[in-house]
Structure formats: C-alpha cells, structure tokens
C-alpha cells in the first residue's frame, strides 16, 4: 500500500508539474491581457515537435536535452512575437468573444501546419540517458526522469514567483495587469509590456514542449490533452494567479494519479469531480483576481 | 392606497462594497405623484443608493417598501414588474437593435408580465397594435422618425431619449432617473425637463432622480435630499435645503447661488 502511495505521490507531482509548465503561460497571459489563449496548447505541441526534430529521438545528455528545450523556447517565443504583431496585437481592445475565436483559428492553423510538416504519425522520444533509470524509494521504483520533471517544475515556479514579486519587471507587469490605463499614465510602455508578456508566455509553452516530450506519444493532439487540464487548473487556481495555478496543478496531478492507480477502471473521472466541487463552492478560484472593477 | 401613504419607502439602508460601508443607514420616502431629487458631491453614494433601491445591488441591512410590498429581497426584474422604471447615468439601450425593436422588446416584456394580450402565440413578428403602441411612445419623445435606425448609431441625446422611452413604455409607477440630463446641451436639457414634466402631469408618475444641474432640480422636484459620504445630511423642500448652512458648506454653495430662485 505504501508503495502505491509513494508511486502516486511522485507520479502525481510530476503530472502536476507537467500541467503547470503548460498552464503557467496560459494564466500569465490571462492575468495581463485578460484573454484566454486557446492557441497555447498548439504552440506547446509545436515546441514538442521542434525539440524532437532538433534533438532527435534519443537526446545525448541531460544538458543537450535542456538546451534543446531552451532553443524550442526561443523559437516559439519568436513565433509568438510574429503572432502578436500580425494577429493578437490588433485585437487588444476588441470584445473577448472575438479574441477567443481568433485564438481558436490560430490553434487550428497551427495544428494544420504541424500535420503538414510532420504528418499524422506518432513519434516517441526517450528521456536523456542520465535519467533513464529508476531509483528505489521505499519499495517503489521511481523513474529519475519523473524526478527531473518535478525539479524543473519547481524551479520554474520559483523563478516565475521571483520575477513577478521581487524584480522590477514583475512589478511593472503587475501594474499593467491591474490598471493598464494608469500604468500608461505613469510612463510605462504598456504595448511593449503586453507584447513581451505574450512572447514570454509562448516561450514558456515551447520550453514545456521540449521538456515534456519524452515519455509521451508525440502527435498533433498532444496539446489538447494538456491544455484541457491547464484550463481546469487555471479556473480552480484563480484566473491570473501563478501561485493558484501551481497549487491547482499539483492537486489535479495528484488526483489524476490516484485515480489511475486506485480506480483504474474509472480512470480520468476524479479530476472532474474536483472541478465540480470547486465550481459550486468557490467559483472565483483559490486566488481570485484582484483587479480594478 | 390613499394619497397620503408612501409609494416608495427606504428604511435604514446599508450597502457595502466588500468591507467598505458605502451607504450608512439612509432612509427616504416618496409619496405618489411626488418628485424627489438626490444631490451631493461625486462619490457621495447617489448611484449606489439608486442601485440598492432598484435591486441592482443588494443591501446589507435595511428595508425597501414599494407600493405596499416589501421588495428588499426582490431581484431587479421583479421590482421592475412592480412598477419601477430606471434609466442609467450613461444611457444603456440595446445597441444592435433598432430603436423600434428596443421599444417592442420593452412592450412585449410588459405585456407578458401583466398577462396582457401579446398577439397570436404562433406569430413571429410583433402584432400590429404593439408596433403602433411602440411608435406612439417613440413619438412622445420626438424620435419616431429614428425608429428603424440601429440604436448604436444614435446621437448621445437621442440615446437618452430612447432610454427614457424604454422606461416609459413599461408604464411605471415611479421613474428612477440617474442624472437624466448629464452630458446634454442646455437646449436639450430643458426639452427633456419639459417632457418629464408633462409625463408627470399626464400619468401622475412619481419621480426620483439624481442631478447636478440646479435648474433642472428646481423645475422638476418637490423635495430634495442631500447626501455626503453615504449619509443623508439634509432633506426637505427645495427652499429649506437651499438655505441649510451645512449643505452650503458641504456643497460650497456655488451651484445654489447661481441658480434662479
């Protein structure tokens, strides 16, 4: 029994961190631009494909693995820049329904591009050799790659929290998120901040794609699965709150893992029970947005 | 209901925004056919009081009685059915509908709520008598010629007129007007005042309004209530309030001296 609990714990944490790597960018963009970017999952997917193309199916070492993920981040960030210039930038003051439709169109477009370039086949990528072993904790075998994902997730969270709360860059972003008009009045270059936020969010998606590509079947639909959990987490955690998203992702990861281990014949349903509980009792999320009304 | 009883009565209303108490125990009463103006500096809580009276926000404590019924826990649409008509500071109409459609929707809602006939149920288009009534209402406010224009394309003043038409189409017992002449040119202002005055005379509608323009207040109100920081600091007839020293101090007396007596 304890074996199972240890397994669920590590597996769940890793799942949660994986969700967080995808959800972080989503909640960030929502916090600052107040839009729900449906294309986020598609950019994550392209990041994963890119990492596969550059790094190959068997990465040479852990450093080349992370390096490739960072390159993915860079490229996807640049794609985000182009997207912002061409599409998102023109939709800043438009009804949110239209923005939703536009990001939906973007998502489809990206899926089409991925299908055209890489085809509909499935690929798989191995984890880097240093972590392609298991370590024994208690009586349970935990893959080192799982631990790597947990570590990267934690580091990402800490970095994001530091940037948002300690560095001046974060303070500027929070000012823009709270009251863009006021921020503009005191001299902040609001359009630049918005653009950089979009780029950063996409870069994060690309990075997530690179990191999470091992132990997955890489297909055009890999984005959809993650993005669904990301949406659930963003709603449970509170729109725009990185802290809330982090906690919600861990919660969902653990719940999903427990569900798969203890009730495999009813796999995948427990997270929806959790969502239902939250929507009924605390719809504003764990950390509700503190905007100006 | 005899003429002496109150049509609208609020007792000790308290409204909070979060932890902050915005309305601190306000009471007021309006008799049938009477007209009350609520004035006060910006931020005094006038619009919030309106929202509490009409049901747009809920009050933390206190009671609102309307036409003999306790409406304190009634939602906004139910209070409207009871007979409250409301306009907004920045006029809100159904922008993508034409002016005629706007009034038709209001009329259909009124007829449905009062169980008046709305025409054969299987008809898609509104009944000719309903359209005629809608055009008559638009005509009363002088905008019948704009009936097929989309509301979004109307000028500011015409939107205000359309919104007033919507409120009147409901045949309310009381009109709650939030700054009815805000943003209008002086000539337009007096026209609206005339319209409201004739409506009061013809239909005996009671009136509660917030206003900054003293001329409008003098032309339309029987009594005035002055608010500051969420409390009532004076109330009474126009003359009484005008001569009240506390009010002069709070309001700096400027507006009151300028207006004709």
């Amino acid at each position: 029994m304890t074996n199972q609990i240890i397994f669920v714990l590590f597996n769940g944490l890793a799942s949660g961190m994986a969700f967080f790597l995808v959800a972080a960018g989503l909640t960030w963009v929502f916090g600052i631009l107040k839009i729900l970017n449906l294309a986020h999952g598609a950019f994550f997917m392209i990041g994963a494909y890119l990492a596969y193309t550059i790094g190959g199916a068997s990465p040479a070492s852990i450093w080349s693995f992370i390096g490739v993920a960072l390159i993915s981040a860079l490229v996807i960030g640049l794609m985000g820049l182009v997207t912002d210039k061409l599409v998102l930038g023109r939709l800043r003051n438009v009804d949110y329904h239209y923005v939703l439709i536009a990001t939906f169109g973007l998502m489809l477009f990206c899926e089409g591009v991925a299908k055209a370039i890489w085809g509909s086949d499935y690929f798989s990528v191995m984890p880097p050799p240093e972590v392609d072993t298991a370590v024994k904790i208690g009586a349970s075998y935990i893959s080192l790659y799982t631990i790597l994902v947990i570590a990267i997730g934690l580091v990402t969270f800490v970095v994001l929290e530091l940037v948002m709360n300690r560095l001046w860059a974060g303070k500027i972003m929070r000012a823009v998120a709270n009251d863009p008009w006021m921020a503009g009045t005191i001299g902040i270059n609001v359009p630049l901040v918005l653009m950089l936020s979009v780029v950063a969010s996409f870069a994060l998606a690309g990075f997530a794609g690179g990191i999470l590509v091992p132990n997955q079947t890489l297909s055009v639909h890999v984005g959809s699965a993650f993005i669904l959990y990301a949406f659930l987490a963003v709603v449970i955690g509170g729109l725009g709150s990185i802290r809330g998203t982090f906690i919600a992702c861990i919660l969902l990861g653990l719940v999903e893992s427990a569900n798969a281990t203890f009730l495999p014949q009813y796999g995948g349903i427990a997270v929806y029970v959790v969502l239902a509980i939250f929507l009924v009792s605390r719809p504003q999320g764990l950390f509700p947005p503190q905007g100006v009304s | 209901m005899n003429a002496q009883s109150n049509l609208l009565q609020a007792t000790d209303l308290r409204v909070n925004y979060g932890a902050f108490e915005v309305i601190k125990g306000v009471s007021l009463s309006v008799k049938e056919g009477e007209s009350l103006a609520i004035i006060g500096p910006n931020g005094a809580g006038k619009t919030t009081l309106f929202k509490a009276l009409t049901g747009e926000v809920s009050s933390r404590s206190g009671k609102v009685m309307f036409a003999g019924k306790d409406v304190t826990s009634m939602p906004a649409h139910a209070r409207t059915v009871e007979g409250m008509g409301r306009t907004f500071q920045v006029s809100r109409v159904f922008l993508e509908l034409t002016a005629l459609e706007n009034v038709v929707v209001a009329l259909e809602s009124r007829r449905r709520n009062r169980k008046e006939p709305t025409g054969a149920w299987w008809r898609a288009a509104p009944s000719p008598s309903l359209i005629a009534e809608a055009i008559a209402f638009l005509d009363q406010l002088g905008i019948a010629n704009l009936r097929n224009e989309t509301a979004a394309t109307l000028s500011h003043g015409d939107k205000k007129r359309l919104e007033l038409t919507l409120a009147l189409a409901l045949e309310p017992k009381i009109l709650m007007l939030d700054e009815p002449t805000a943003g209008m040119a002086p000539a337009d202002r007096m026209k609206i005042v005339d319209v409201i005055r004739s409506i009061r005379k013809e239909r005996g509608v009671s009136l509660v309004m917030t206003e900054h323009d003293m001329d409008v207040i003098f032309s339309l109100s029987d009594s005035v209530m002055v608010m500051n920081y969420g409390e009532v600091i004076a109330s009474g007839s126009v003359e009484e309030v005008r001569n009240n020293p506390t009010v002069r101090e709070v309001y700096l007396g400027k507006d009151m001296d300028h207006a004709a007596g």
Partner: protein
Amino acid sequence: MTAASWVPPGAQTSFTGQYVMTAIGAVLVVLLFFAPELVNPGLLFIIGMTLIQSVFALSWNLLFGSTGLASFGHAGFYAIGAYFTGAALRYGFQLPFVMTLLIGGALGALAAYIIGVVALKRLTGIFLAVLTVALTEAMGKIIGFTPALGEQDGLGNIPRPIINLGFAMIDLTNSNDFYRFLLVACLLVTAGLWWVVHSRLGRTFRAIREDADRARFIGIDVARYRVISFMISGGTAALAGALSAPWTRIVTLDQVNWLASTQPMLNSLLGGFTNFWGPVVGSVVFTSINYWTRSYPGLSEMLVGGVLVVIILVAPTGVLGILGKIRARLKKGDRG
C-alpha cells in the same frame, strides 16, 4: 403605421430581394430532395452529414449568436441524442422511431435544464466555457466505462428504422429513403429554430445578449430565459445527434470530445454568427474545404484556421457579414 413597417432582423428590405432569396431556397430544397438520383452514395453521405452538422451548428448559435452565451461542450448534447437513439435502435426498444427521436431531444433539453439551473445563475463567460467542456469530457469518460454503449469501440451495427404508422409502413432501411426522412426532419427543425429566433422569444434572447442588466430593468427574468435558451439549444443539438445515429449507423466517442464540440462553433463563426443562416453556410463551406483538401494532410485545418483569423481581423461577422457589407456598399452606391 402598418405591419409592413416591421423589419425582421437581417431580412432583405426590398421586395425583389425577398423574392429572389425564397426562390433560391426553394430550388436548393428541390435539388437536395433529388440528391440520391443526382450524386453518388459517398457524396450523398457527406450531404446528409452536412445537413446534420447544420442543425447542430444552428443549435449552438441560438445560444451564442442570439443569447450571448458560449457553450464549449455542445458535443455532450449531441452525444446524448446519438447514444440514446443508437441504443434504442440497436437493442430494439419498443418505441416508434419518431418518439425515439423526440425522447432523445427531450433528454438533451433535460440535461441543459439541470446544468442551466445549477450553473447559469452564477457562471457566465469563461466559467461556463470550462464547465461545459468538463461536463462533456466527463460524460465521455463515463460512456467509456459502459459496456452497453460500446465503451471505446463505439456503439455499432445500428439498424435503420421502419416507421409503423398503423395504416402504412415507411421503410427507411435504404439509405436513399432515410436520407429523404433526414432532409425533411432537418428542414422541420430548422423551421422551428427560425421561428424561435424571429419570435418574441428570440427578441427577449437578443435583449439579454445585448445588455443583460438593461434587460432586467425591462422586467425580463434574465436567468430564466437563459435557461430556456439553453434548453432549446441542448434539445435541438440532441435531435441532431439522434438523427445522426441511424445515418452513420455507428456512434463513437469521437463525437463526445471537446474537438467535436468545436465543430458547431467553427461552422457558425465561419458562416457568420450574426445571421440566422450563418451556421448553415459555414457548415457547407467547411465540408467543402474538407472534401477538396482531403488528400493534403493539414491543409484543411490551415485553411479553416487561417480563414477564421482573417475573418476576425477583417470582418468579424463571417462570410455573410462580408456579403452584407458588400450589399450595403452597393446599395449606397445606388442611392448616391
């Protein structure tokens, strides 16, 4: 001051315009009726699916275009109708076929009622979106555990029905015959939705969409009418699903996931969500694009996604919106 001064929304204002549109519509219906004789069975199947998708899209747009609510999980309602009808036919429930269809629709409306009463009062916008997606996904998972509904493989071997009218039997086992029934059924449902959108009910929905607070201050019980709109929308989506089960003869989980929910959205947005016929136009356009690009993987998604983005940037009201703008510009040219 006559009834002629009433201009239904989105209608042609000139007499010749109305005449032309009705004539085109009539010709289309006749062509569709004789389709089995005009096209090969493969294309007929696609036409049938397009009819079903049009009704599905119309049901979604009742909620979005007319009432201002975005449901991201509409496939759930479709699946309710599809699985119920599929099971009824496959397991030989002793029910007249039309009754089966109506019950399927009613189940969809019931589900919508429950969701509406529990959720619509406090959840709009993004919360409603996530809730509807989550519910549909959850339903998909539950179906996946249910052997009677075919689990992961789907519910197959669905027979086409025979309608017993007592005095006559209408045998729909043949594709061509069922196709005609499908056409008639879709036309009826479409007519019903047209009536709803253009009636008093539709006007109430539009007021709520435009400005819900203002609608309250006109005496409209906004919460109640949102639920009514949700029920009609869910019920007709379920009807579309119900009609699809005997047509495709198999119901699978592919029709219950969130990707399937995006189909009616896509069709409505492509064709133009401000016009009643937009979803139909969008369904036809999408099916055509899919068909013509079927040998080039990814091209259909790129085209449709790209078109959507361009539409939003240039003309948010879709294909019909662009046509409407062109028409308005031509009319102005006439007057000048």
